[in-house]
């Protein structure tokens, strides 16, 4: 019953979406207000219908209705409640349904927050969203229907892949999709502007909050995915340059570039055409990511060839939207007028450089990700492009960019004074230099590179703090007055500083972990100890434990510090899920400050011991905490009064360029 209801509302949503994709365009063309007014209503109805379909699938999972093929393949009656719910999107069909749920959610949000957009722009934006929706509803209905029934219905399900039965992976896809799909709004705005043939600074002001929101969720999604891989796979790595990871990283890089170019467009009405192109490219990369992950092309080029339905369909969607929007761009972009002038040494100049490096870095990731697929598809060798490639290409491109970050916010618009800015950054530079020296001289085993890496991270962190310090006038004004100014600074300035600070923290975590981590692989018997990074771990032995749908052998290690005092224990386990006959490793992690002790168990040996792999990961948590700080920066900016969606149209004063306290 639920499955049929869900299926039916999915079909209805397709019909509504077709109407949404066509009628408002006609209305915008003819100036028919009634047809244009259809758009927000249709966007709402589509959202409601997909919401209903999604709820139906969740209900089927909750009731363990194994007559639904999707539930049978991915659920089990003994699975804990939380994973019954999250298992809904732990598979291809369900995750595509989540994809379109978020797409229609964004459509509905545009119709709420876009109440004071120009009528034709809003109609066109929503209609383009309708096109995207139509394409993906068709995809789901034709190739990936989650509501297919089984007859006769099996008694028990096959259970969800155990490594997906984890709270991290429950949160990761929704966050990631909010980011991925959020960029569809930027895309729709870009295409609508091209259809309209009109674009101005106000357009950038409408687009920026959407970019910011999508970017902040994507940041969270990537950070969450990275942390999940770190603790769940038991390999202790936080980033593998795996094609699936790159698929989400490329839109993030392009989205970061878009975020910065939209600032130039909003403040200075420059870089209009480039910003439009970036908006299109960012969502194109999101679509590419969807294609890479969902088509099966990564599992095997041949799996793609033997089961072409899904892959070819998404490829068609890809070609239609990317090709179509780029063609529209080629025809219409020349109509858009170029904007304000600026000197190369200026805030605009810095943001252009930022864009240059970010898009080039995106291109290297793109090449590294797709090259093996292309070589194999044309029948060449099977090759793998891994971490060494990205270290050699992506790394060198990031270093100059990161060195420049603190300069950007301090440079004035139009024409900046690089010498004056350098003088202001003297303290931050001194601090970074001190960090380099201290790390190099006092940290055992620190290479020059590691010390420079820590210095670069300190440079980013101190640079962000200097920015706030100077803009609130500390040093020039009495402290109480400066404090008042600090509180009164526009929120977007705090957002910028926080995002750059978060970047510095993430970098510090990466450098700290890569340069100073320690690893021990030992065969250990109960009662024996192993030492790592000044800690002594006493292995107490294995103890069986029974979970709701798994059995595990837990190994307990007591931790003693170098002083001999006991500071707790860490439990690592080997788990076995009978439903899929699949073992997993549950890493034992103990956080100390920002660092972690990480214990992962291997096989038992004939002599009664067990193989254990133990890592000391210094500063590792900063990698993800930095991501959280970046998200917080995005969120703070989102609440800036000048950026609030739609607000500028009502507030005339906000249209005046704001004076910059630093210039």
């Amino acid at each position, binding site marked *: 019953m639920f499955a049929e209801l869900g299926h039916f509302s999915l079909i209805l949503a397709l019909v509504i979406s077709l109407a949404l994709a066509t009628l408002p365009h006609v209305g915008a063309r003819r100036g028919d207000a009634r047809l244009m007014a259809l758009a927000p209503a249709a966007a709402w109805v589509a959202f409601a219908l997909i919401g209903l379909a999604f709820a139906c699938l969740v209900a089927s999972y909750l009731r363990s209705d194994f007559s639904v093929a999707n539930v049978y393949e991915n659920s089990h009656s003994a699975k804990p409640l939380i994973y019954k719910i999250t298992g809904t999107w732990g598979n*291809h069909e369900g995750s595509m349904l989540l994809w379109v749920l978020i797409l229609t959610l964004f459509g509905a949000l545009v119709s709420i927050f876009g109440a004071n957009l120009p009528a034709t722009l809003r109609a066109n934006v929503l209609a383009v969203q309708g096109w995207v929706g139509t394409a993906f509803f068709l995809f789901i209905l034709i190739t990936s229907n989650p509501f297919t029934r089984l007859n006769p219905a099996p008694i028990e399900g096959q259970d969800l892949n155990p*490594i997906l039965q984890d709270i991290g992976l429950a949160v990761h896809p929704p966050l990631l999709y909010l980011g991925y799909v959020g960029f569809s709004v930027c895309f729709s705005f870009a295409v609508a502007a091209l259809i309209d043939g009109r674009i101005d600074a106000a357009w950038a002001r409408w687009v920026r909050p959407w970019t910011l929101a999508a970017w902040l969720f994507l940041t969270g999604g990537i950070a969450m995915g990275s942390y999940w891989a770190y603790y769940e796979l038991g390999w202790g790595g936080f980033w593998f340059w795996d094609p699936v990871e790159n698929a989400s990283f490329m839109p993030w890089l392009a989205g970061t570039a878009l975020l910065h170019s939209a600032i130039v467009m909003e403040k200075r009405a420059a870089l209009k055409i480039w910003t439009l192109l970036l908006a299109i490219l960012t969502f194109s990369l999101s679509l590419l990511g969807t294609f890479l992950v969902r088509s099966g092309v990564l599992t095997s080029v041949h799996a793609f060839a033997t089961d072409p339905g899904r892959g070819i369909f998404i490829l068609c969607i890809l070609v239609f939207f990317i090709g179509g929007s780029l063609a529209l761009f080629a025809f219409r972009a020349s109509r858009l007028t170029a904007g304000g002038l600026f000197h190369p040494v200026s805030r605009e100049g810095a943001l252009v450089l930022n864009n240059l490096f970010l898009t*080039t870095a995106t291109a290297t990731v793109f090449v590294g990700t797709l090259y093996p697929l292309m070589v194999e598809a044309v029948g060449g060798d099977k090759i793998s492009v891994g971490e060494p490639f990205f270290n*050699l290409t992506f790394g060198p491109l990031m270093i100059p960019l990161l060195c420049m970050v603190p300069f950007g916010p301090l440079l004035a618009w139009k024409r900046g004074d690089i010498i004056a800015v350098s003088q202001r950054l003297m303290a931050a530079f001194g601090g970074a230099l001190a960090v380099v020296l201290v790390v190099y001289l006092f940290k055992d085993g620190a290479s020059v590179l590691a010390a420079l890496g820590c210095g670069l991270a300190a440079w980013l962190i101190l640079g962000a703090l200097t920015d706030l310090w100077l803009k609130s006038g500390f040093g020039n004004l009495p402290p109480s007055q400066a404090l008042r100014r600090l509180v009164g600074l526009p929120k977007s300035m705090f957002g910028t500083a926080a995002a750059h600070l978060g970047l510095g923290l993430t970098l510090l975590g990466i450098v700290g972990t890569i340069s100073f981590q320690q690893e021990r692989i030992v*065969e250990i018997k109960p009662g024996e100890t192993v030492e790592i990074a000044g800690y002594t771990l006493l292995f107490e032995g294995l103890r069986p434990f029974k979970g709701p749908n798994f059995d595990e052998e837990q190994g307990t290690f007591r931790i003693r510090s170098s002083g001999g005092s006991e500071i707790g224990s860490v439990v690592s386990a080997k788990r076995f899920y009978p439903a899929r006959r699949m073992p997993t490793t549950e890493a034992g992690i103990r956080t100390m400050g920002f660092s972690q002790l990480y214990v992962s168990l291997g096989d038992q040996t004939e002599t009664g011991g067990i*193989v254990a792999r133990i890592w000391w990961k210094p500063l590792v948590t900063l990698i993800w905490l930095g991501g959280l700080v970046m998200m917080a920066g995005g969120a703070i900016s989102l609440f800036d009064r000048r950026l609030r969606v739609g607000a500028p149209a009502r507030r005339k004063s906000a249209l005046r360029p704001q004076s910059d306290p630093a210039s």
Partner: protein
Amino acid sequence: MTRKQRRLTIIGAAGVVLAIAAGLVLYAFNDTIVFFKTPTDLAEQPVAPGTRLRLGGLVKEGSVARDGGTHVAFVITDTEHDTPVTYDGILPDLFREGQGVVAEGAVGADGVFTADTVLAKHDETYMPREVADALKEKGVWQGEEKATQ
């Protein structure tokens, strides 16, 4: 600064950065790409000792030997030829005799492959793709074709 000058500056800077990136990519392609080989490939065309590569095939039945400590020795086979492999560390959860694996490392002068990474399939229905393809070519593929989700 005129519009034209600005445009030239931007195009110049973009050209420089793109050229550097292209250079890096080409250099990295020469240096960092790892080829996938089967034991038969190695038997027919031996590679220079020390070359990094990914070796794929099935873990030969009865070949896994542990020294009681953390060292493991096993044989990767594609049913025609065998390559001995040594590894120090924790094997993946789904490492079993008779199942597909990919080992990354290098062949030594003695013909023994020293692996620093061993990958097994992720779950019961997934086999490392190179292994599945290579085995299909050899006609010894037995797994079912349910590899994609």
